[in-house]
């Protein structure tokens, strides 16, 4: 079959993926730079191309609440947000994961006000690192599309049953157009089984969801949550392999670029990792042995990361962060350092803070930063 290729923005790519997943309910509130996702979906629904119930909620808190309500009835649901919208739904974000509802959400990463800034930064998602959601970070429009397609299957897997977010950086991905290879609808229908939420409310055996829970049971809920989050790591790997079978496109939790003989390993997420690959090529031309290791998921933190880091020969790590924990450090850098400690790896680590609030980070600048042998933390532009 001829593969269909279109030229679309990241936002439209996500909307197209959602259309294939055919959610029962979409509840969403517009926010820059996510707006186009909800606009395109509304168009699909109004034209009858997509037969979802579309709830035009009056806030993001209500968006996530409506998703929770619908998923509690056993529905497949989708929402999308960004930055302030994400923070506004914070209470419901935690609610969704504790309630074990496989809600899929696209988050178009954006910086936080005051000082209104609509450009890319990962802090909106990373601030919800401990919310119990599976977190994917994508680096191209094709990847945002493919990951959204996979997200439904991962979230709804019986072994997982956890909400899942797909992050794509504002403007850098949301508003840029790239060629997109579409997945065939029939193939996807086979890939994504019908949703079945085992604890959904029903009328045959009435039960209550969310009643008071005492200390002797509450921690068990959290224990189970973690168990399923850990299991999600394997389910994601399995899903990526299945996806590869129908599309030929290969995704892994840890994406390696020229890492095998690298003495210096750059670790990053999202589009800055791709920018680092360009810098890597240029440095390789100059004889530097450098590679880029891109993390596609922050939660569950991939087991594959430990496997790769143990195996690879790199002696020096450079971590790029597009989000910062004030008074602590680059969020990814601190996560990675903790993992290295777990593995007994004590090597030189350099932390680069770059791209906050949409700061432009060209590959030439990254090249310079990579070559700077000074360790510790460096803020690009400061």
């Amino acid at each position, binding site marked *: 079959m001829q593969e269909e290729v279109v030229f679309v923005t990241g936002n439209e790519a996500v909307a197209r993926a959602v259309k294939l997943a055919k959610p029962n309910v979409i509840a969403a509130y517009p926010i820059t730079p996510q707006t186009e996702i909800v606009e395109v979906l509304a168009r699909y629904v109004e034209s009858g191309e997509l037969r979802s119930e579309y709830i035009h909620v009056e806030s993001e808190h209500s968006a996530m*609440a409506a998703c929770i309500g619908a998923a509690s009835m056993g529905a497949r649901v989708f929402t999308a947000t960004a930055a302030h919208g994400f923070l506004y739904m914070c209470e419901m974000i935690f609610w969704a994961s504790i309630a074990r509802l496989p809600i899929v959400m696209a988050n178009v990463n954006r910086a936080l006000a005051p000082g209104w800034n609509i450009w890319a930064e990962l802090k909106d998602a990373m601030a919800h690192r401990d919310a119990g959601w599976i977190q994917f970070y994508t680096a191209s429009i094709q990847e945002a599309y493919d990951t959204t397609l996979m997200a439904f299957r991962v979230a709804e897997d019986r072994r997982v049953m956890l909400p899942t977010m797909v992050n794509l950086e504002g403007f850098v991905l949301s508003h840029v157009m790239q060629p997109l290879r579409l997945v065939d609808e029939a193939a996807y229908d086979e890939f994504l089984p019908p949703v079945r939420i085992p604890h959904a409310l029903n009328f045959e055996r009435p039960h209550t969801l969310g009643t008071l829970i005492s200390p002797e049971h509450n921690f068990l809920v959290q224990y189970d949550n973690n168990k399923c989050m850990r299991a999600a790591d394997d389910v994601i790997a399995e899903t990526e392999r299945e996806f590869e079978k129908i599309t030929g496109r290969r995704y892994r939790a840890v994406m390696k670029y020229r890492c095998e003989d690298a003495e210096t390993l750059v670790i990053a997420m999202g589009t800055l990792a791709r920018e680092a690959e360009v810098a890597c090529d240029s440095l390789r031309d100059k004889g530097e042995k450098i590679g880029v290791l891109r993390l596609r998921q922050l939660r569950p933190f991939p087991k594959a990361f430990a496997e790769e880091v143990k195996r690879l020969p790199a002696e020096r790590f450079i971590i790029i962060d597009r989000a910062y924990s004030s008074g602590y450090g680059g969020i990814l850098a601190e996560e990675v350092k903790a993992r290295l400690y777990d593995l007994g790896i004590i090597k030189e680590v350099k932390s680069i803070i770059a791209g906050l609030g949409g700061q432009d980070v060209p590959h030439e600048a990254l090249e310079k930063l990579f070559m700077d042998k000074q360790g510790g933390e460096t803020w690009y532009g400061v």
Partner: protein
Amino acid sequence: MLLFAPYILLAFCGAAAFCGALNIVVVSMVEVLGKEEHGGMKAEKREVRGARWLAAVPEDEYVLKGNSACAGCTAMIALRYALKASRATGRKTLLLVGACCMVVCEGVYPNTAYNVPTLDTAFACTASMASGVEAALKSFGRRDVNVIAFAGDGGTVDIGIQALSGAVERGHNFLYVCYDNEAYCNTGMQRSGATPLCARTTTTPSGKREKKKDVPRIIAAHDIPYVATVCPSYPMDLYEKFKKALSIEGPKYIHVLTPCPVSWRFPTSKGIEMGKLAVRTGMWTLYEVEHGVFRLSAPSRRVVLNGDVLPVEKYLRAQGRFNGITDEEVERIQKIVYQELERLKEATARRRLW
């Protein structure tokens, strides 16, 4: 199974002590049907009418014994009759409960006192979660379910008003019920927007300085098909309004005044009496707005139209929350009530609430 066990709380019929709510209902029946004057009917006629009505109310109980409601809780009467009314429509019931006393009344996992599928929600989002539930049912093509959302006054008139306004504006087919105990009673009686003027709460120790927010009127201004006010002291009126609401397609809103013995500080046996006093003094008015048409309900008709109104002092002095209220304050409240009754009289003439 352990995986989902904490979420699957099977309906539990406790063999525990006879619950306060049921006791109170028995008392209320006797009071309403037996003793009190009621719209000028003679005693026997009233009894016949009451017995006939009672025979038509489904016997099935959806609020089970062993629930953890406080003794004398009138909100549980409202819930009990709401669920019976839903049963009487022949459709199934899906109940949502906001963060409020009614979540506590369910009991603690693995028990639940509500024998219908129930979704407990966070504080601000009872109406928006109901939107999602309704949309899911629509997507499944199910038209045989009454979606009923219960929330307290804090969750409705304060933190949840945005979600409620949004949900009714969008026209979801559901019934939203605010049971109004006029404070954050679940957390020990802090002031809410529904707390009446001069009431002492733990956060207004010298009395609230502002009036009660009139949320039924705000919701009626959304032009939804049905808005009603009720009180468990008038169970026939309450039951019939719930039944009527559930027969109408679209968003419906019922505001229930539920006297709370714990927070209002009156004896647990006086809940029904307190609700009646509220209506008889004009502190609370029973009405409905059906497709925009305003109509007073029988118990309030004589208060508003015939001037058969008791002084507010009788109501205020019966409750500990108004302890220490001055004569001037009573006078002020009385004046506001008279103004309100005048406004309702005009509304009756115009057949429009606003």
